[in-house]
């Protein structure tokens, strides 16, 4: 019979007496072999470009045709100074802050509440789950077309609102453009986060709800005192994913608000990376914006981890 202490025993490590291939590959070479394609993928698609971007952000860099030599003098922090003194870049970070302030709490709250409601349903469960998930798997471009029709000057929403409709309209109003995008993205991605919470809710013991109900706790109290703590680790995951995907915002401002309009009010840092790096041939400045964005997203993720850390 296996004892608990045997289960907890540390895995054997390689030693200097082992052959070189065991020292290199470890005691579980099969696991390493199966992980290798993904390690290579990460190295080629993530690690190399990230390292390269950090590198060129410190140089005066231009892309050239193969075999063409161009000087790339080291410029230190000059690219960082240039982007941090560019009002349009600073504005894009402010825009993304507005987006995150609206999108992240809405995403967490709505997906948790909707998942709880779906979890308690006994009929039409599949239909509701599909209804929430369909926007997530539908191409942004097609959904954006529908939203443009709904939220344009003469669109459905303004027709319903009548005299209460904003002027200028939603997507060309410098105060409403970013909140409109935040609502769109929240709605589009909700289905994915609802699924995450639905999976997490399966691990919350039903006995806790039954005991609380016997003790006279209402639905709101059961949600606050059982559901919310019970899915805390999923909430952290949702928070971090929402921050990362929100910070990478590109398609929506590019298509929904005509390239980051009105007057740059919905321009995101990634949109500017695209403009500076791809359109304007300034990969050094684009890389500097990218590095700053990675650092800020890392900090936000760290703060989220600390805030949701269990006692």
């Amino acid at each position: 019979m296996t004892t608990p202490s045997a289960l907890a025993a540390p895995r054997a490590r390689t030693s200097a007496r082992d052959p070189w291939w065991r020292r290199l590959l470890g005691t579980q070479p099969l696991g390493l072999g199966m992980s290798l394609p993904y390690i290579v993928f990460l190295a080629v698609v993530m690690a190399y470009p990230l390292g390269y971007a950090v590198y060129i952000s410190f140089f005066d860099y231009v892309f050239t045709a193969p075999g063409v030599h161009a000087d790339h003098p080291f410029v230190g922090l000059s690219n960082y100074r240039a982007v941090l003194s560019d009002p349009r870049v600073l504005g894009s970070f402010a825009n993304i802050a507005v987006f995150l302030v609206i999108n992240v709490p809405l995403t967490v709250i709505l997906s948790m509440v909707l998942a709880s409601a779906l979890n308690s349903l006994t009929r039409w469960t599949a239909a509701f789950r599909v209804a929430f998930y369909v926007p997530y798997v539908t191409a942004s471009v097609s959904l954006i077309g529908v939203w443009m029709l709904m939220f344009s000057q003469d669109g459905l929403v303004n027709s319903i609102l009548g005299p209460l409709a904003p002027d200028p309209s939603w997507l060309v109003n410098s105060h409403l453009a970013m909140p409109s995008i935040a609502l769109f993205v929240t709605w589009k991605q909700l289905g994915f986060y609802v699924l995450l919470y639905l999976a997490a809710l399966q691990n919350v013991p039903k006995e806790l709800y039954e005991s609380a109900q016997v003790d006279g706790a209402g639905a709101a109290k059961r949600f606050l005192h059982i559901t919310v703590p019970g899915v805390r680790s999923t909430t952290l995951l949702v928070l971090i994913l929402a921050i990362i995907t929100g910070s990478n915002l590109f398609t929506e401002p590019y298509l929904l608000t005509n390239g980051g309009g009105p007057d740059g009010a919905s321009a995101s840092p990634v949109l500017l990376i695209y403009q500076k790096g791809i359109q304007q041939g300034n990969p050094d400045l684009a890389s500097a914006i990218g590095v700053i964005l990675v650092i800020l997203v890392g900090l936000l993720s760290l703060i989220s981890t600390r805030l949701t850390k269990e006692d």
Partner: protein
Amino acid sequence: MRTLTRRTFGTAALALPLALAACGRSAVDSQEAATARGPISIWVSTNEQELAWGRAVCEAWNTEHEDEQVTLQEIPAGSSSEEAITAAIVAGTTPDLIFNISPAALPDWVRAGGLVDLTTFEGGRRHIEERGGTRARDYAEDEGKGGYYQLPWKSNPVMLMYNRKIFADAGLDAEEPGLDTFDQLLDASRRIVSSGAAGSAIWPSPTSDFYQPWSDFYPLYLAQTGGTRLIEDGSTTFDSPDGLAVARMWRSMYDEELAPREQSTDDAMTTGATAMQLAGPYAIATYKDAIDYGFMPVPTTEGIPAGKTITFADSKNVSLCSTSRNRLTAWDFLAFATDEEWDGKLLELTGQMPLRQDLASVYPDYFEKNPDYTSFADQADRVADVPYVSGGIEIWQRFRDAYSGAVIFGTDSVEQGLSDVAHQIDALIKE
């Protein structure tokens, strides 16, 4: 030892992509390529009419050049052809010839080493300048004195297109609208909207793309100034009474809601949602079966005769890429595809104006059969393009951003917007 081995393994894992990247970029021996003949490939626009021309010219060439076959491909998909070409230059995947070069991006492609100077071929300069005349020099290095990295190929002179029925419904003269001045244009616009003949008078795209000023501000600015470009003699020109007059006219259009601030969700001209648009001759093929249209020169503050109006050329040119391994064939094919016969075929199939001298007298039969295009042929002799300057896309993006704030959305004053961006662009030019 263990640490050393793992470090080696980690270094190898990271070095692998670098090695792969290096293998993908093999350079062409330019001296060998300059005298070589053989098969080549060309890119043309995805436009249906241009594709038809491309297929025809390739077929004609291929029947007579068995060992120097030309393969036609469409420019790869991208949000703009400039991005697709930039990516191809960096990756070393450009074809031999590209028949869709934007003059705005070209100086940066030259800087990246992606293009070949066409004057290095025997008779190169002569062919370009005999075909295009003195204005061909606007597309050369060193203010016309240097090499040509592009052959000025075709233009789409921008004019004011209008819907005759909407004009008639608004009580305007549909045959001779006479909108020569900004005041006349604004008055007519007010009548169109207030009468309900159309929801908007004119509908330029309000998006933030760098090239949008070429379809609203720039044609009127060129007309107003008699052809002054955005940048001349190393500094900006638009922070001036002429630039302000054009910008103020457009600001009035937006403030009075005669031009929408939102992008049209469909073709506003076809649906009758707008009465006017700034367009080139390509628009004729699009609208000939949909609406009853007319064209007039773009207006100015005081009004000038049509025969003196200068407008935006909106040209697309041809370049030979440095990845070409058979450059003699590429040059010969380029000269063949831009001779009088194939320029005539281009005109016939696309309605776009070959950038050659005296179009109307070179192709009299075509213009007799297609009178709609006559005004464009006349206008094609009086066009100006974007300035030949490095960093052109960034400069135009800065201009568009400022224009959006000051003119379209009114978050800044017109004076302040133009003044600020002029200083920014002047600083960029000096870098």
